[in-house]
């Protein structure tokens, strides 16, 4: 009974597809199959990668500057309460080199005995860029002490940034007679753009006599800001900072103290 279809397989093997299905497009079918076997990969041109990387970098840097600082990163308030002479190095009087005494004290200093017996783990925290700069006092300009007396100049400045408490920076410089050195203060170009810097006080002290000329917002004949403008070179010329009643030898010899930047570097006369 099965004989009638015995050779059917052989018959069909010999058949051609053109005969059985004339409309079959082998090449079109292959293209479709090849598309599924090798799907086209989307390639982003290199330049687009570069643009994307640049934008990400800018965003990262921008975010870094815009982030408010944490409480731990508040700038330390510097105060100068120590007596003037205590702040000087022991060999200052004998040292012939230009001497710049640094009397910067941080209020938030941790006392050693507070952590006694405790294992200290140093955690590296990200320091806000603004404050990082604030804590670095910048010796910007040279100043020459043209008087016969050693003089100390202390400049108190306030940095105000958004989202943070204002912080005070105090920096002092001591200048030996007829010597020049860098005058230390925080420069405007060293703070973040969104912060402001104001000068509160300038104290000019004659170390030998202990006399101090205190300049502030109400002082006369010059305010602290006016004198600071000459220090920074914002104004050219000379300014009378104040009067000393005696000279280094404690002789009653009233003389004015002028700051002069007419010839370039700042000179105390």
């Amino acid at each position, binding site marked *: 009974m099965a*004989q*009638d279809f015995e050779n059917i*397989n052989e018959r069909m*093997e010999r058949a*051609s597809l053109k*005969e059985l299905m004339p409309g079959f497009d082998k090449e079109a079918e292959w293209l479709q*199959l*090849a598309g*599924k*076997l090798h799907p086209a990969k989307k390639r982003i041109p290199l330049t687009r990668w570069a643009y994307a990387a640049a934008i990400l970098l800018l965003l990262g840097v921008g975010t870094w500057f815009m982030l408010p600082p944490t409480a731990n990163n508040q700038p330390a308030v510097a105060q100068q309460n120590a007596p003037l002479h205590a702040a000087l190095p022991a060999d200052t009087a004998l040292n012939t080199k230009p001497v710049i005494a640094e009397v910067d004290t941080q209020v938030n200093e941790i006392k050693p005995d507070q952590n006694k017996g405790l294992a200290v783990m140093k955690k590296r925290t990200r320091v806000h860029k603004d404050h990082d700069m604030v804590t670095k006092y910048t010796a910007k300009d040279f100043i020459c002490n043209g008087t016969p007396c050693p003089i100390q100049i202390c400049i108190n400045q306030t940095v105000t940034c958004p989202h943070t408490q204002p912080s005070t920076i105090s920096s002092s410089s001591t200048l030996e007679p007829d010597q020049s050195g860098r005058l230390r203060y925080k420069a405007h170009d060293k703070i973040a753009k969104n912060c402001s810097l104001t000068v509160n006080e300038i104290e000019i002290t004659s170390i030998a006599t202990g006399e101090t000329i205190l300049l502030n917002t109400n002082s006369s004949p010059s305010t602290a800001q006016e004198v600071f403008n000459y220090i920074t070179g914002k104004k050219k010329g000379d300014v009378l900072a104040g009067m000393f009643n005696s000279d280094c030898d404690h002789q009653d010899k009233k003389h004015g103290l002028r700051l002069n930047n007419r010839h370039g570097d700042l000179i105390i006369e």
Partner: protein
Amino acid sequence: MDEASLVKCCKDNNPAAQKALYDKYVELMMIVCLRYVADREDAREVLMDAFLNFFKHIGGFTYLGEGSVKAWLKKIVVNQCLMHLRKRKVIYTTGKELEQYDNSDGSENALDYLNAKEIMNMIQTLPDGYRTIFNLYFFEGMNHKEISGLLGISEGTSKSQLHRGRALLREKILQTN
């Protein structure tokens, strides 16, 4: 390039080798699809899926000489056709009606008067169940035990379906002749 090399290149996902094997077997496999799946568009889709599976799994294929690629590919195509039919829920009726068609009219050589297209058309007009078992028995060379295991039916059902399919086909052939 010989077939062994083509297989090796296909394992490396080489498009040229894939195209060569496709060209060699596509027509033959389309004929196989048409025998199982009457609708031409469905047959095209089934063939496409079968070739995709073939190239996807060729990494696990071991070349055993001439004919091994064809046999393996045909097995994939047939399985793909059966999957397609399974999705269409082809029903295989039981073997109770076997005796009804157990009559041979003696037209053993009736096929000799038909061309391939006519034979294909007749096969395609068979009901899905008859056609599937007819194909598996006469074209794939499987016995009723193998067919019943493959389709999940009894051997009796397989025999019945084959008998009825063959009788129907014979009837059509005689009408044509």
